[in-house]
């Protein structure tokens, strides 16, 4: 069973508008969440993260929101740019003695159209 779910396989947004990528999780023991961005034929690159003790983290055009009661997090990209077109993975860390292992969602492919 999936512990980290990205229910939208794809998302298309116009350049300049907001992109909102969503992620749901089932394990309340997750204590840290990360977003990765992946271009074709490249490895995933770390984008932004948030601790479970916070509800928002912002870095430039990227903001991650965490709603612990709903077990939901979202990544907002404002304004969206064509170079943001990529696959975005949500990941969660179980904390404790997990050796830092991450559990990834299946990804959402974002297309930003000029």
């Amino acid at each position, binding site marked *: 069973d999936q512990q980290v779910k990205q229910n939208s396989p794809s998302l298309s947004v116009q350049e300049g508008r907001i992109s909102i990528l969503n992620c749901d999780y089932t394990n309340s023991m997750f204590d840290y969440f990360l977003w990765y961005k992946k271009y074709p034929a490249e*490895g995933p690159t770390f984008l932004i993260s948030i601790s479970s003790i916070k509800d928002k983290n912002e870095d430039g055009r990227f903001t991650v929101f965490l709603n612990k009661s709903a077990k939901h997090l979202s990544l907002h990209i404002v304004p969206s740019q064509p170079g943001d077109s990529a696959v975005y993975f949500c990941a969660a860390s179980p904390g404790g003695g997990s050796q*830092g292992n991450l559990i990834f969602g299946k990804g959402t492919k974002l297309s930003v159209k000029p």
Partner: protein
Amino acid sequence: DAGITQSPRHKVTETGTPVTLRCHQTENHRYMYWYRQDPGHGLRLIHYSYGVKDTDKGEVSDGYSVSRSKTEDFLLTLESATSSQTSVYFCATRGGVHEQYFGPGTRLTVT
């Protein structure tokens, strides 16, 4: 990014042959990971290492083995490749608390 290289970057092999993929890092990170990425599955952990000669299984470890004799190198071996192991393989390292940094990937095709 951590200096992570993977070799080979592309490989085509036949069913039943052994295959070894190499991950090399220059950041002296303690933790190293092997993932596979398949359509519809995202990134799934195969094996990981928490130090030299210290390794453990991940979610999809069947058919794979690993070795880590030096901090900088983490090898993934498919003892007898099968078509279900056709995938893109990523190595990652972790030096801090949570963030993992990924290599460029190896595309493996088993015919």
